[in-house]
Each structure stands twice: as C-alpha cells, then as structure tokens.
C-alpha cells in the first residue's frame, strides 16, 4: 500500500527519507527537487495530511522560515544532549560566517576558496577558523571545504556547481541563526540552582 492510498502526496517517502535523517527541506534548495518537496509540504492540504501521518510514527513536522524539519515527540535527553554537542560546533562556524566582510546570509553563493582567502588576509578571521575543530584539515582551504561539506551534509548549504565548487546557503541556515539568537548567556551565580547554567538553549 503506497502513500497515495492514504491520499498523501506521492513524494511522502522522499520527504520522510530526508527529514528523518535530521535534515531540512528548504524552499531555495534545488538538488533532488528539494524546492518541489518544500512546495508539496507547504501546500496546506498536504501539510495537515503529512503532519497527521508522521505524528503516528511520533514525528512532528516543524515549520521554519521557508524550511521544514522533523522534531521527535518525547525525545530522550541523551539524544538532545548529543544534538547540542553537534550544534556547538556550529556556533563557531556561524560566528566566522557572520564576521566575514561579505556576510553569508540566506541565498548567498560563495566558494570555499573565497572564505579561505579572506581568512588568510584577516588575522581575526584566521583565528576564528583555526578555532573550529575539524580533524585532518591541514590547510585553511581544506578546513573551509570540510565545514562546507559538513553543512551541506546537514542540509544548511547546497553544492550548486561542483566544477566551480560554488555553494548556496539554504533557508535552513535560519535555523542555526535562530538557535544562536536563542542562546542567553547568564552571569555565573554562586548558588547550585539548576537554572544557573551558563547557556540556556530553547
């Protein structure tokens, strides 16, 4: 029995395959018909059906600004912790991207070599880049490439042109920005209150 039999769009499987891996579906993504998938989920008729369908298997479709992703209902704390650890690395990456002369924002197109060049020319950026833990990245360019690969893998970027090594920033990047913006840093207090941790994440 296929998805269509439940009145679901026939791309349901594709949608699930992407989002169940923790990836995002962005409206400006072009690879593998991502924008089409976005349009399908964004269609109110489909959205409700898909939401209902995925809720059964304890997935919830979350809507961001021009992107969708899955959240799990009652996720284990250990998983959340793991996710936070993964996210931690992005803080430095976003910090680096936001410090560039040509700020990297949604829809920006860039090549790793451009970023590496700018980092090479700017000590501050170089330090920021060096601070990002990436194993086996011997040169700055390789490090930036690794970052881009990582972000592409996590569906924040898209490798638009392999020949020119041109990446495009997808709408899901907003998720990272929102996460960063949601971080509040509090002064450490002497008490042992559980609310006194350094970083509070929403």
């Amino acid at each position, binding site marked *: 029995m296929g998805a269509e039999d439940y009145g679901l769009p026939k791309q349901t499987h594709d949608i699930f395959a992407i989002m169940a891996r923790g990836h995002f579906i962005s*409206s*400006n993504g*072009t690879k593998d018909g991502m*924008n089409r998938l976005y349009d399908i989920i964004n269609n109110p008729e489909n959205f409700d059906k898909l939401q209902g369908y995925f809720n059964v298997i304890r997935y919830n479709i979350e809507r961001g600004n*021009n992107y969708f992703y899955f959240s799990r209902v009652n996720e284990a704390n250990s998983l959340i912790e793991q996710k936070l650890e993964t996210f931690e690395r992005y803080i430095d990456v976003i910090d680096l991207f936001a410090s560039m002369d*040509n*700020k*990297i*924002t*949604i*829809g*920006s*197109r*860039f090549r790793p070599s*451009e970023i590496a060049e700018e980092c090479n020319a700017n000590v501050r950026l170089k330090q920021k880049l060096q601070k990002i833990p990436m194993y086996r990245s011997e040169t700055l360019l390789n490090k930036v490439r690794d970052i881009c690969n990582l972000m592409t893998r996590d569906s924040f970027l898209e490798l*638009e*042109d392999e020949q020119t090594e*041109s990446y*495009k*920033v*997808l709408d899901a990047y907003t998720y990272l920005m929102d996460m960063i913006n949601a971080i509040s840093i509090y002064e450490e207090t002497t008490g042992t209150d559980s609310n006194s941790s350094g970083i509070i994440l929403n």
Partner: protein
Amino acid sequence: MENVRILNRIVEINIANVKYADIELCGNTCFVGTNNFGKTSLQRAILFFYSANSRGLGIAQSQKSFEEHYFRYENSYLIYEIATEDKNFFVMVYRHNKLVFRFVDAPFNPDFFLNNNDEAMKIKEIISNLEKRGVYISNQIDTFERYRNIIYGTETDKQLSKFHLLKGNEKYQNIPKSITNVFLSSKSSIDSRFIKDFIANSLTTENSSIKLEQVERQLRQFNEKYTDIETYVKKETQQLIELIDKKYDQVHMLKGAQMEMADKLGSSLRFAENQNEAIREASKKKEEELETLTTEHEALKDSIESKQNDIREEIGYYDRTIREANKKLKEYKEKNIDEAVEKNAEREKLQVELNIARREYESLTSNVSSIELKYSSLIEQLRNDKTAYINKINSKTGEIFNHYNELQLLQKNEFSKRDVELKEKRDEAMGDVTSEVTAKQIEFNELKSEEKVIRNTRFYEQEIKALENELAELRAVSYKNKSERAIKQNMVQTIQREWESLETRLKTSLSNRVNQTNNEIIRVKNEIKEIEGKLNVQHDAFYGFLEKNVKGWHETIGKVVNEKLLFRTDISPEVKEETANTLYGISLNLENVEIVSKSIEEYQFEKNERLATIRDLEESLNQFQAANNEEKMLAADKFGKQLGELKEDVKVLSYSLELADKREQKLGVELEDWKTKAGSEIEESLSGNRQRLNIIEEELTILNKKKNLLVNDFNTQFERLRTYNEERLADLKERQETEISELEVEKKNQVKEFESKEDELQKEKDTNFKSKGVDAKQLKSVENRMKDINDALKEIEQYAQIVSDYLKDKREKFDKLPDLIQKKEEFMKSNNDLATQLEEATRKYNLKRMELNKQKRAFDEELIEFNNGVNFFSNNFRETPVYNKYAEIIERAEPKRTNYNIMDLCTQLLKNDSHFNEEYGAFQRYVNEFAGKFRIDNHFNFMIRNDATQGEYERFAQNLRSFINENKIELSIAETATQIGLVTDSIATKVKELSGQKDKIQHIITLIAEDFKKAEFEESKLIEFIKIKIEESDNKVYKLLKRIEEFREEHGLVYNEGLFNTDFATGQKREISGRAVKLLEQLRSAIKEGEQEEIRLQDLFELKFNIKEGMNETGWTHKIDSIGSTGTDILVKAIIYITLLHVFIKESSHRSSKDFKVHCIIDEVGQISAHYLRELLKFAKNRNIMMINGLPNKSGLESHYRYTYQFRKEDSGNVRIFPSIVTEVEA
C-alpha cells in the same frame, strides 16, 4: 545469358591488397577462404555497389575507412558490370579526392584499364582510351545519391537513365538498406529487435528518429524556465521583490544624502582651509580698524575735552569775575553807596560853606578875644577833654567795633573757608556722582543706539537669503518636475492602452486563426478518415475485387463507375465473361473518357497530401503563433521598454519630487529656524540690551538720588554753616553793638557832662560876653552852622574811602559786567556745542565699534568653528572607514560655504553611516535571499556573487526594477508558453511522423507474413511455418511521447496560454497547462531513467514470432535463441532475411520493373547443411535473389553455387582470388 538485369561481375584493380580480380556474380556465388583473406572485403565491395554508402558498410571506427582501405592508389578501380536485357554496361569507381563513379556503355574489357604491361592505367588514360574506342563514358558522378538514383532508375537524365539495375519507386532507398542490413546482421539468434531494426531501418532515413537528447534538452530548457518563472511568481519571492525595491530606495536615498553630506563636508573643509588665513586676516584687520577707530575717537575726545577745559576755565573766570563784581556791587549797595556818592559830590560845596562860616565867626569874636580866649581855651580844653574822651570812647568803640569786626571777619573767613571746603567737598562728591551719571548716561545712550542698531539689523540675513533662494529654486524645479511627471504619467497610460489594445488584437487574431485552423484540420481529418475508410474496406469491397480480378479496370470500369460504389462491400461482384468489356452488355468507347477511379497509391497519396495539409496548417499555425508571439514580444519589448523607461522616469521624478518635498520641508523648517533664531537673536540682544538699559536706568536713578541726597546733604551742611555763621555774626554784632551802645551810653553821659560843663562855661562866657556886649545869638547860629557843616564833612569823610573804592570798582568791573556775561554765555554755548559734538562722535564711535566688534567676533567665531571642525575631522573622522568610503567626494568637493559646520557634518555622516550599514545589510540580505531562490544559471540572470560590490548589488536592484517595469516576466511567460507549445508540438510532430510509418510497418509485416505463408517449406518439411505479428510498444518513453502527442491532438496548440494564468475565467486552461507541464516532466524523468538516446521506428511496436520446425514450436516470442541446430537457426534467419529483402524489393521497385535480380550477401553460412543450403538457395531463387555467401573452407557446400571463388594470400601479402572448379548442383 538470362534476360534480366543483374550485377554480372565485379572487377577489382589495385583494390586493398588485391591487384586484380574478376569475379562473376551472375548466379549464386560462394567465396571460400580462411579468415582474414579478404572474403568480407570483397563482399563489402559488392555491397557498395548496392548501397553506395562508404559509411554503412560495417567498417569499425578503429579501422581504415572504405576509401582509405580500398582505394590506396590513384589507379585503384572497382568495376561493376551489369548485365541487361540486351547489352552489358559497367560502372567504375575510383578515387578523385573522394569516390566518384563513371558509367561506361560497354561490357567490361580489361584492355580498357590495363596497358600492355598489365598495369592499371590512370583515369585520364582510361577515359581517353575509351573515347578513342568510341565507347560512351558518362561524366563523373560525384555523389552517392546520384549514383543510386541512376542504378535504381530514378535518374531523369536520359543519357544516364539507361544505366539502371532496376526501376525503383520513391521508396527505392529501402533496397540498398535491406541488402546492407542483411549483410550487417551477424547474430546467430533470431531476435525480433533485429527484424524490427531491419524493417525500421529499411523504412526510415537517418533523421527519422526522435533524438531524446534533443528532446531532453528542450524539456530541460523549458523546465528550467518554468521553474524560474514559478519561483518568481511565488508569494514569498514577490514579497522579497517589494522589500528589495523598498530597501533599495532607502539605501539609495541614504547614500544620496550621505554623498550630499560628504560633498558638503568636503566643501566646508576646502572652504575652511581656503578661508582660514583670509578670516584670520579679516579678523586682524577688524581689530586694527577697531584700534584705529578707538585711537581716532580718543584723539577727538581729548581735543574736544581739552577745548572744553579751556572753555570751562574761561567760563569759570568769567563766572568768578561776574560773581565777585556782583558780590561787591551788592556790598556797595548794602552800604548805600549811591547816597554816599551823592553826598560826596556835595563835599566841595560844604567846604566852601564852612570857610564862610569860619570867617563870619572870627569877625564876630574879634572884641572879646581875651574872654574869648579864656573861655575858648576852657571850652577848648573841655572840648579837647570831651574830644579826648570821645576819641577815647570812639577809639574804644572802634576797638570794640574793630575787634568784633575782626571777629566777624574771622567768622566770615572761617565761614568762607568752610563754605569753600564744603563746596569743594560737594563739588568733589558731585563731580564723582556726575561723572558716574555721565558715564552711565553715555552707556545708556550707547545702549539706546545699540538697540536702534539691533532693531535695524537683520540677523542671519545671508543664511535666510540663501535658504529663500534655494527654496525658490527648489519650488521652481518641483513645479517643472510635477508637470513633467504628469506628462509622463499620461504617456504611460497612453502607451499602456496602446499595448493592451495591441495585445487584445494579437490575442483575437491568434484565437481566430486557431479556430480557423482547427476547423480546417477537422475538415481535413474527416477527409482522411473517409480515405482511410476506403482504404480499410477496399480489400473486401468492389474495389478489391476489381484489383484482384480485372486487369486494367481503371481504364474501363474506372472511367464509368461511381466512386462510392467502388467501396461498397455489399454488392457481391462476380466476373461474367460474356459481359466483359461491356457495361451491362453495352460496349462503350471509353478512350476519351477520363478515369474516375483512383489507384490505392492515389488514395494513399491523397491521404498523405491531406496529412501534409494538416501538417502545413499546423506548421502555419505554429508560425502564426510564433509570429504572434514574436509580435507580442516585440510589442512587449517596445512598449515594455518605453513603459519601463517612462515608469523609471516617473519614479525618478516622483522620487526627486519626494526628495524635493522633504527638502522643501526641511528648508522651510530651516528657514523658520533661522528666522526664529534671528528673531530670538534680536530678542536676546534686545533683552540683553534692555536689561542693561534697565540696570543703567536704575543706576542712573540711584545716582540721581544719590546726587540729590548729596545736594541736600550739602545744602543742609551749607545751611547749618550759614546759620551758624549768621548766628555767630549776629552774636558778635550784638555783643559789638551792646558793648558799643554801652560805650555810647557812657560816652553820651560823659559828653552830656562835658556839654553841660561847656554849657556852663558857655553861659559864663556868654554872661561875660554879655557883660562885654557881644551878640551871643548870632555867634551861636554861626557856630551851629559851622558845626553842621563840619558834621556833614565828617560824614562825607567817613565814606570817602568806600566811595573812592566804589568808583574804582565801578570803573574797572561794574561797567564791564554785560561784556563779561556776554562772553561767558558765548563760552557756555561753545562748551555745549563741543559736548554735543563729543556726544555725537561718541555715539558714532560706539556704533562703529560695536559693528566692528560684531564682525570681528563673527570672524573669530568662524575661525574657531573652522579650526574645531578641521581638528575634529582630522582626529575623529579621517581615520574612519566612512571617510574612505566618501574620500573621493570629500576630496574633490569645491570650496563653498555651507550652512552646516564641519563637526556636525562629520558626526552626522558617522551616525548616518551606521544607519546606512544597517539598511544596506538588510538590502543585501534580501537580494541574496531573492537571488538564492533561483537556479545559479536562471534565465532571468538573477545572480549575485557573495563578494559582489555595493555597485553590483545596486545594479541588481536596478535591473530587477527594470525587469518589473518592463514587465519582462510577461515576456518570459510568453516565451516559456511558446516554448512549451513548441516542445509539445515538436514532440507531437515527431511522434506523428514516426508513428505515421507504423502503417508502413503493418503493411510490410503483412506482406512478410504472407510471404512466409507462400514459402514452400512443405517440400522439405523442415520448417512448418514462420509466423510474425505486430504488437503495441511497451517503451515507457515512447508511451509518454505518444501521450503528449494525443494530448496535443486533444487540446490543440494554445493550451499553453494558461501557464501561470491566475485568471479564474481561464482557469480551465491553467489546469490543461498544468497537465502538459506534468506530462513533460514525466517524460523528462523517463528519458533520464531510460538512458535511451533516441526513439526510433522500431521502438514504436513490438514484433513477435512463432516458428515451428519439425515438432518444435516456439510460441509467440520476441526472441528465439535456438530453434534447432545452429544450421537451422542460420537457415531460418536467412529465410527471414530473404523474405524481408524480397518484400522490400517488391515494395520499393516500380511495378513495371520485374526483370532484375539482386544479391543477398550473407557471410558465414558454413554451418548450414547441404540440404538446408539447397532449400535456402531455392527459396531465394524463387524470389529473384542471388546468394553471395562466405565459407571458411571447401566442404562440398560450394558445389551448390554457380560460382565459387577461392582466396589465397601470396608471399607478397597480396591476395589472389581465383575461381574454383566445382560442379554446380544448382537448386
């Protein structure tokens, strides 16, 4: 020699590694030779005769080309001799850069080509040799096509038309194709695909396939454009466009403002730098002017004051003199000087009277001189005593008088002294107060003048005037811009209306044309249907009957029969010999009657013609649509550009008006500010002034009061002093008078005593005189007279000194008083004049000083402001990125005075830049987000690099604006709509073209099936039957292509109109378009998945066989791997080939052309049994086909062929081909 046309022989001269070979082919021929000896090469050379296509001979790409391999030398010749009904001719092939042909109207003769040394001659020699012999040789035939036309009898040149092998029809190309296909098929298994390929390849040209790469490219292009447009029309994208547009305006405005400000800053800086020294100089000059003015004024003041002092001294002198004179005069008056002077005037007269009295008295007393003497001496003594006493008293009185006088004098002196002192004190005090009052008064006057000056001064006049001028200019420009905008808006409306009307016209014309074409197509389709109906029923109808049974019926019945009757199936025609050639028994001469009936070909032709008409109609509609679109696009381009430009102009004008409006408001506010500032400056100055005036007034009042108090005080003091003095004097006088009166009383008493004693003496004398007779009475009277005179004289003598002084004073002073007063008044007037002059000069000086001070202060303030500004610029601005951003504008600015100071401009620029950066960041983000929504190589060219400059971002926004203004999206939609139309149309046309040949395939398959039926397999019972049938294709891509074609047929050409159409009224079209887009997308995916390069004719159908060999029946299948033994397989394959060849030759040759034979070249038949081979050769022979086969070695099979040639490789590497002597056991 048979009476048929056939390739009789092939001669190779210097071909490949064969020096010379002459091979006869006029019968089944077999080549025996080991592999790589050249069997296949020879077979290829034979095939080239039929195909004349050097590329389609099965030579691998890696191998040398046909030309290179076969025609190595300039004297390489390939000669084909063709036997005909009467005389043989040959055609030679040689290389003249490329391969060329010449037909020679003579049987082949080696002498034509070989010289005496058996060496091949060059072509020129051969030609001249032939010409010498009078043999016709054709011109060089340069193209394979022409050669084929000649060989297959379609050449129109009469000289060449005789050189044909057979007379082909328009499909003659199938013959070489079929022969080639048989030769090239080497698979042992029988696969329907091969047969399909065979049939399809025979029927189609190279171009009659649907190149999927091309379709995929078209689909991709369409899909990309469609996706781009879809992305563009999305709500979020439109929102982003609005945001970009808005932000761009803001950024642009901010940038403009920043640039303007930078320009002002630059101007101010240049001005400050240029003017610094000048202002310093000007300030210095003003200071000098001020000093000069002060000096001049001081000098004037000094001179006037010195004059005033002199005058005052004069006045003082005269005043003093006058006062003293008056005082003396008053004193004289008090002493009754007039009376004294009058009495003094009588002195001489009294002296004379006294002398007279004395003489009279002496005369009277001359008789009684002794008595007289005695008594006179006594009296005299008494008198002397009395006088002494009086004198003593007088002296005492005098002393007292003098003493008191002295005291009085002292008192007076003291009074005077104290009076003077007090006066001096008063004068001093008064002088201080007066000078203070005067100073205050001057100040007061100055302030008053200043107030007057202030009231007349227009503060910030320059700024206000500049602003007023600017406002006036701005209003004038705004007015101009408003009218221009109104004009342009009108033009926009006009152009829009024009554009709309043109669009409507185009739309209507397209729709009319579409309707018209569709109607026409429907009509033609109906006709086709009718023809097809006829064709379908013709077998069973009267027509089919006539075709089968009546030879040349078109010439007879065809001229008189009703066409409808021909296709009736219900009239059961029968041939009755007795009525043959008559019409119901009536003979007619039909020679001159036109034929009514049509041949099947003619019907087919008519159908094709109509199909072509439909194609033409569709093509014409397409062209019309394309032209329509083109026109639409041209209009869009023309009007869009105009509109875009106008709208841009309107926007620019609106923007400049908006800016002007803002500027006007700003200037208005500034003007008001300046005015208010000027007013408040006046008020401030006036209020300062007034305050000062009030203070001074108060001070003056206080001073006046003080003065009055002082005056009063001094007056009191004076009064006290005077009272005291008067009291003291009165006291002294009183005491003087008391003492004197006491003395006078004493004196009087004493004098009385003396007088009584004198009287006693006088009486005694008188008594004595009487006694002596002297008139005592007269004497008494004389004495009294003398006494009175003496008294009068004494009195006169008493005032003599005063009178004398008075007269002297009168002469010296009193008489000159009027002159003195006159002079004093003159001096007073001069003094007043000088005071006025000084006052006026001081006022003027103060005004001028104030003005100069103000100017100097202004210069100083400006200088300070400039220096502060320049310092601020150097310390706080120059090192910032903002400076670098606008450095060029700042550095290039013209020196000019502005209304803003440098510091404010720097601060504002820094502040604005931060705002600008914020806004610009947002603008950049929107542009990135917008561009990111599109593919990197989107056809709108919405692409921005991450490291793009500000200029590039701004150009992006400008281009986007132009895009919107020129309504380019409509153009793009129109283009895309046309494209989808063209794509579907192109697909439909191709599919139609291709599937149009399905009929042919069906026809061929039917013929093949029939031919299989006809095969006389029964004799050997080897193969019971070979059946073949056609089925629908299961090719996914083709199915989709077909669906698209059907869709296109169903919905016509203009469903593309609905693309992106949001109009409810035409919503239906949108749904249709949506389906079209979906179908195209499916097709694209299928093409991608399938990895098929093209859809050929063979993909349109499936072919199935059913073969029964002995007891084995394969059943309906696509592919028969093995029917029986390999030999059986080869046999079946060969049978199928021969059948195919036969069918194609029959189909492709003219009906009249029957006397010809062709060759079927099948290389390896070594594994076939002799029995089978005989069957095969017989099967071929029955179909006028000669077999050319290859055998690896002699096995007895060769004995079934008419000609057998053996191949031997010589030591030199050359191959020798020679006939083998065998006995033919022909089938």
